[in-house]
């Protein structure tokens, strides 16, 4: 039986089969509804209670998952290994951070309208690029817009000149490194090494209140769901086909009459926008943004999440980011002196033994199981051949 051509199906059917939709809905319900309830409604004494710490931790993981989705779209589906996603994540984060800083208001250390770091640097007033961030709407738009515009400019230059493969990875790595050095400068007016921190409120809600943090968690969950659906829609559309084709053989795509530049640029910009949103959700939950977020190592880690989870499958990206970060949190507690060995070994192991990531594990296990299971006797030639003929018809 052939799979029907996706473009002939209605939209919702195109993205998932009904059973898959049920699973997605169930997971979404679990993550977005049940988890916060386990924190707010269930009393602390119960074993089902999720502590505040855990909820904010999961919120952070969710933003990482959003970041990984964009990366997967870029790398898993289009084959562009960008080692600079941290740039867009951080840009989105800084936009939201600037908004949050301005809304500390007079509650800062110096009870001054200006952010604390500007006070002790003796700056007389806000630089021109700060005041627009007072508006939540502007900050949210900027969190998406600034990374997108930056990605558009950089991507245009890069893809037009056909910088590909490993070269592109290195260039993106150099980009995030250079920006990190730039953001460390106090003159830039973005807090330098101390970064932007000490937030008090977001959109009027106090950040110290658990209800706000739960709200942010829920928002992260919803954004993850929406991003997932959006990415799924992209990958299941004709555009997605072209992207996969570019991954598999860019020159042939070009020979077939498509210009890969536009597609690559589109997906690069989309991934940047997704990363920006993730950054904007990350910052209020974590409480600080500083230039070390732009460290090349952080961007490489995003690629590791996707590789561990499974490139080319959106579920894999989400899974990988959750597994790796959870593992890191656990390892830095249990084995503070040697966790890097374990993490490094995990990376190497996954790349070597599970090149398609963790999501391929059940399939492999199943295939291995099938090999071990008893087989039907081979001695029924006519029946099997006829069946095959029927199947290929």
């Amino acid at each position: 039986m052939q799979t029907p051509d996706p473009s002939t199906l209605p939209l919702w059917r195109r993205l998932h089969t009904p059973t898959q939709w049920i699973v997605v809905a169930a997971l979404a319900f679990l993550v977005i509804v049940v988890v916060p309830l386990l924190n707010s409604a269930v009393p602390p004494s119960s074993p089902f209670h999720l502590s505040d710490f855990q909820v904010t931790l999961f919120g952070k993981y969710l933003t990482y998952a959003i970041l990984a989705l964009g990366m997967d779209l870029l790398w898993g589906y289009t084959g562009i290994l960008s080692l600079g996603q941290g740039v867009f994540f951080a840009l989105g984060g800084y936009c939201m951070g600037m908004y949050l800083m301005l809304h500390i208001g007079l509650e800062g250390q110096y009870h001054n309208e200006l952010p604390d770091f500007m006070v002790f640097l003796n700056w007389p007033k806000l630089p021109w690029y700060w005041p627009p961030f007072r508006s939540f709407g502007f900050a949210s738009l900027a969190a998406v817009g600034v990374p997108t515009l930056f990605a558009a400019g950089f991507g245009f230059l890069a893809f037009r000149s056909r910088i590909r493969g490993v070269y592109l990875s290195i260039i993106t790595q150099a980009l995030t490194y250079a920006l990190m050095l730039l953001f460390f400068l106090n003159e830039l007016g973005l807090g330098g090494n101390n970064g932007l921190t000490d937030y008090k409120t977001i959109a009027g809600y106090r950040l110290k209140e658990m209800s706000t943090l739960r709200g942010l968690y829920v928002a992260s969950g919803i954004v993850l769901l929406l991003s997932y659906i959006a990415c799924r829609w992209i990958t299941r559309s004709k555009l997605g086909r072209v992207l996969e084709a570019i991954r598999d053989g860019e020159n042939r795509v070009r020979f077939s009459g498509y210009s890969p530049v536009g597609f690559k640029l589109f997906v690069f910009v989309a991934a940047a926008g997704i990363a920006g949103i993730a950054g904007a959700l990350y910052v209020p939950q974590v409480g600080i943004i500083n230039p070390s977020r732009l460290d090349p190592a952080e961007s490489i880690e995003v690629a590791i999440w996707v590789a561990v989870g499974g490139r080319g499958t959106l579920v894999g990206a989400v899974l990988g980011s959750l597994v790796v970060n959870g593992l890191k949190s656990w390892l830095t507690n249990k084995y503070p002196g040697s966790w890097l060995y374990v993490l490094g070994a995990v990376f190497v192991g996954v790349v070597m033994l599970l090149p398609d990531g963790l999501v391929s594990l059940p399939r492999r296990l199943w295939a291995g199981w099938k090999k071990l299971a008893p087989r039907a006797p081979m001695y029924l030639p006519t029946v099997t051949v006829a069946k095959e003929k029927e199947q290929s018809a």
Partner: protein
Amino acid sequence: MRHVAQCLVALWSLAQTPPAADEFAKAVTELASRDRKVQEAAIETLGRLRDSRALAPLTALRQGTLFLRGDVLVIVPTEKEKKVFLKDGTELAPLTEALSGKPIAGPDGRPAMIDVSSLKRVVATNALKQKIVPVLSSLSLASPDPDARKSAAGRMGEDRAPESIPLLQAAMAQERDRWVRQAMDEAIQMIRLGDASASVRKEAARRLGEISGSNAVPQMKQMLSTEKDPAVMDALKAALKDIESHESLTQTVSTSFEVLSLSSVLMMIALGLAITFGVMGVINMAHGEMLMIGAYAAYSVQNLFQAVLPGHYDWYFVVAIPVSFLAAASMGMLIERTLLQRLYGRPLESMLATWGISLMLQQLVRSIYGAANVDIKSPSYLSGGLQVMSGLTLSYNRIFIFGFSFCCLLGIYLLLYRSSIGLRIRAVVQNRSMSACLGVATGRVDALTFAIGAGVAGMAGCALSQLGTVGPGLGQTYIVDAFMVVVLGGVGKLLGTVVAAFGIGGVNKILESMIGSALPKWGPILSKVAVLVLLILLLQKKPSGLFAIKGRHADA
């Protein structure tokens, strides 16, 4: 009777130790007195006696390394490697006697290692130390170390005491080192600038301009506002102009030299990377860690020499170079055989796998050597520098590294272009499948290439250990620049790496000074950003680098 009396007198005077020596010994012993005035008097006496044996005890008193062992004044060495630390934390050190300068020997004749905590430190107040300094500088004029003589002369020039002139002239007459003589000359002229006679001042200014005495510049500038005599003013202005032009010359030379040395290091680091990438299409994210392994190998060799062969310490570096090559090469071979071989044809996965390796290697080094930086002392033949002009000293280790990197380059060139292995390597770079068809064992070529690339990085690390600090994060500092060199230079021609390394190093420096003059604080950062932007723009025209192999290869 008279003869007997004369004999007795003669005998008696012979029995006396010579007054000078006696005074010297007395003064040194008095340095340990508890009475500050006695100490001061002792210091003055030593200054007056002009006995260069006083250098050691006076320096020790000033540095706080003069101790009393019972009644004997001893000096504890300050070099770490001379000390021994026992397992329970006791510190042992070999001592030298302050008076005679001889080491205190144990029963077997070798220097005895004595517990430092059993000694009593001789205390000198800060005011006392200030008094020691001028005495030290006048004694240092006769020091065996030319740098000490130079700084002694410089100090005397700054003090501008006219009494120093005859001292300096006497020292100059005996001086063989050209630059020390010049320093003394400069000091004399600086003192003469303050002379009452205008002709003396004029002559001093002229001479200073001649020898480019830059130490005198502040003094001369000050004199411009107070000088009355017009002839002297003219001489001053002319001299200042001369010195300034000389200084800009030295500045340019010095900056270029620094650029050359940094670029040569970058070139060495990028060479290994370029070779590996050319042959296997793999960017080794653990390349920085190969660098680190090489540096730590040098550190281990240094420690070994300190422990086992302290007398031949200087030769550790000669041994360290091949050791670091082998250490890094074996690690590279190991990585290639276990990992990369199985990831053939998947460059992006290889990048990530080597990233995991780099994390593990960094942690390994942290566990074995500690997370802190380690200190590597340059051997004596690499310390110090070569003075080429007045005010310009080129350090020996940078000169060495520059030469060494080109030797490496030559070695790699010979390997690639004049050996059969090199032939095979080049074949695989140009067309892997065809080479395999023609019988080249591509697997073995891969392993060897990776090992060589890692080994070159190891040697670069060994060279780097002489330049700066060595810590587990050493690799991460240089790796981004090395990547950019490979991207810019392209793969397949050694010339590409060389040009790219010096290009990036030079452009970085030029941009830094250009931007730095306009926006001082942004100089170094913006230059890095600018280099990146330029790189991207350049890649528009040449996406595979400056010196890419031309050929009909399709998809990478």
